[in-house]
């Protein structure tokens, strides 16, 4: 039914792998930053917020270009990483993880921050009177209560990473097997006369994956909320 070439399957699996890794890597930072923004006021907070939310507002290609001129092989940070640690992002799936992660990060932070802000601080006060320091309070009260929001944030980030195109193709271009995600593969196929049929097959796969992600996310969030309230 779905006539996919081996290259197409490579693109599908690569896309999933990049999206999963990007979400997993950004999640701890997302939780940390969301908690910081939700709970603390500090000098320069507005600047931090602006930087975090910037990829939401910038054209994706601009974000990709900024990544290229900082993390490209000959760029300041990229050259440093290459020389001292042998870490290269150009043309590699790890670079795609970075561009997808960067684009997905603000969505994740926003969702998690909202859920943490919604937590009744009086519960955290109660935990403190019972002997919980800020760390244990965070782990035993704040995090569990924020779980539905964290799940939502993670799924949102995953979905965004799945579909990321502009920043990724600008930063690490379109290398089959390394950085050619489903979106890039479809794009390449549409650039070639006669590639429409193959492109359509990939489109179907992309839609199915997105639907599956959505359904899973809904189910997970609902279960978490139900468990929270003692169902």
């Amino acid at each position: 039914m779905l006539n996919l070439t081996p290259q197409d399957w490579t693109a599908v699996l690569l896309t999933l792998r990049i999206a999963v890794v990007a979400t997993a890597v950004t999640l701890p930072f997302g939780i940390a930053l969301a908690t910081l923004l939700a709970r603390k006021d500090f000098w320069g907070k507005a600047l931090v917020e602006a930087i975090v939310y910037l990829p939401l507002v910038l054209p994706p290609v601009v974000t990709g270009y900024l990544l290229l001129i900082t993390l490209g092989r000959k760029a300041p940070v990229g050259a440093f990483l290459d020389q001292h640690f042998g870490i290269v992002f150009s043309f590699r799936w790890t670079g795609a993880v970075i561009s997808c992660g960067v684009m997905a990060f603000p969505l994740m932070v926003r969702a998690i921050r909202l859920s943490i802000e919604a937590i009744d601080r009086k519960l955290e006060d109660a935990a403190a009177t019972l002997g919980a320091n800020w760390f244990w309070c965070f782990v035993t009260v704040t995090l569990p209560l924020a779980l539905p929001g964290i799940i939502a944030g993670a799924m949102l980030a995953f979905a965004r990473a799945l579909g990321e195109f502009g920043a990724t193709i600008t930063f690490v271009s379109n290398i089959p097997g390394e950085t050619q995600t489903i979106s890039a593969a479809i794009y390449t196929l549409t650039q070639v006369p006669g590639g429409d049929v193959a492109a359509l097959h990939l489109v179907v796969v992309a839609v199915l994956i997105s639907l599956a992600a959505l359904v899973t996310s809904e189910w997970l969030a609902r279960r978490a909320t139900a468990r929270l309230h003692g169902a």
Partner: protein
Amino acid sequence: MLTVDIEKSFGEFSLHAAFNVAGGCTALFGPSGAGKTSIISMIAGLTRPDHGRIALDGEALFDSTTRTNVLVSRRHIGLVFQEGRLFPHLSVKHNLDYGRWMNGLTFDSAAFDHVTALLDIGHLLTRRPGRLSGGERQRVAIGRALLMQPRLLLLDEPLASLDAARKSEILPYLERLRDEARVPMIYVSHSPEEVKRIASRVVMLEAGRVVAVNGAELLAGV
């Protein structure tokens, strides 16, 4: 023995209170807005006074002259809130165990059974707070504060959010608590009936000032 001598201003309202609390049950009595909850909050460490000193059994919990301010989590002072504030994601049993976990205390089944019997919550252990009635929730909240083995128990208008029937249902538990739990209690309330039943000493508060300290006879005319 708790000694309190604190000052704090909240915009136009200023609070200046000094009193001592020995064992037994002391009431902090006064109309709404007198500053009772603020004082409790400062004793627990959730709010910080502007000046003054709070000391428990000789140890300074707060002292503005030496810049001492012990963290809330280290004061070992139990606090029963007006709305209970049970953790919704934990069962009743886990709520009760919470203070013990956080303080690294070993499980004392005798104490546990004693408290659950005292407050008649033994049959509620597997339930979630969402499934408890208002009265049950308050009893669990009291049990939770007790089971962390506090040096001092603060109760901030624990019956205020309950209807008359629930109130009269819980008052006997509070009386038993006063008689059997060997921990000093401070009971905040604006209800003279409650205070007369429970407290042996009364600290009367008005507009942020302590106006009288004595036995329950203070409330004779109220």
